[in-house]
């Protein structure tokens, strides 16, 4: 009995030890992502920088300055910041535009022109997103990788299943106004 009473004591007094571990673990976990974030940090070309010529790279890049010429980041993400002014042909894996691009844009994954962004030129990309406040003038070429759906036109598309999460870009699921054919 005495021993049995004694036995739980260490377990009661043990919590401080694991607590200190768990405290130190988050600290370690926090410092590790910081380090990783530092390692993965995108390269930033600042507002006052003007580049004339060809810009190549193998890491993600954010441009806030001016570039005249050509930008090529074939396997990486290029972000044109709100202050970025680009007069160039742009090639990247994915391109996010918050500033201005004057030139043709080619992305192997996606072009995303955000609110306030502007593109004057032709876009070639399988996916294109253009926000309502964005400016775009030119053409959009979305090459189809799969065969065309056979009944694209004559029959209305089947109703989509109800989404599990709110999907603001799917207004097709909105109830129709009454009195309209």
């Amino acid at each position, binding site marked *: 009995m005495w021993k049995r009473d004694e036995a739980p004591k260490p377990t009661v007094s043990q919590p401080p030890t694991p607590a200190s571990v768990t405290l130190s673990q988050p600290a370690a976990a926090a410092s590790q992502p910081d380090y990783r974030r530092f390692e993965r940090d995108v390269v930033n070309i600042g507002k006052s920088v003007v580049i004339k010529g060809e810009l190549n790279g193998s890491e993600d890049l954010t441009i806030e300055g001016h570039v005249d010429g050509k930008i090529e980041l074939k396997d990486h993400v290029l972000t044109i910041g709100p202050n970025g002014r680009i007069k160039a042909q742009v090639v990247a894996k994915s391109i996010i535009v918050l500033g201005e691009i004057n030139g043709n844009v080619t992305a192997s994954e996606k072009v995303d022109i955000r609110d306030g962004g502007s593109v004057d030129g032709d876009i070639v990309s399988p996916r294109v997103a253009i926000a309502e406040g964005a400016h775009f003038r030119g053409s959009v070429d979305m090459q189809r990788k799969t065969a065309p759906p056979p009944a694209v036109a*004559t029959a209305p*598309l089947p109703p989509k299943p109800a989404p599990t999460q709110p999907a603001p870009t799917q207004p097709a699921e909105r109830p129709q106004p009454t*009195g309209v054919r």
Partner: protein
Amino acid sequence: MGLSDLFSRRRREHPDSDAGASDAPVYPTKALSTFLASVGNRQQVLLLDLGPVVGQSLTFFGEQLGCKVFVEDLAKDIDRQAVEGKPDDLAVFYARRFPQETASIDGILCWDLFEFLDKGSGQALAKQLTRILRPGGALLAFFNTTEEPPGTKPQYTRYVVTDASHLQHRPYPAQQPRQKPLNNRDIQRMFEPLRVTEQFLLKSTVREVLFRKPAG
């Protein structure tokens, strides 16, 4: 953090999910599916969209047709000329507005743009569109059948394709009001030699007209 903070944060993070825009009404369309069928049987479809750029619609056309879409926002031209006080110059402007080659475009989406043009400008634009449309190509245009009530704020409509049979109508301000509704005969004459192949009068008083350029 309050609910309004959450919403404003969400709007900042997702600018294209604007609540007002997504609340706009969705109406059925009868002619769009026929239009898609008309142009979708080509290898590399070239579309010309004369309305304001709408990302969702571009994505739809890209997914459905794998096409190339030229976006020429003519509403901006109309507004600019109206602000400069030179709406009559539009007819001259349209004569050199389109760099596309003759008979090079498979399909043209005019939406309701002709509603905002006077007769001369409308004819000049129709002439150019007829020129660049390839034989067998299709042109889709909307016309209102009723006049706007007096005192109505002038506004364009941004047509967002939600699927092949529905369009969301998102109004936005215009510099000048709609012209008087065109009758059938005027519409047919304006687009000659195109032929009206389908015509739908919707309960929303919009007439959807699908034209086709005769082959040869």
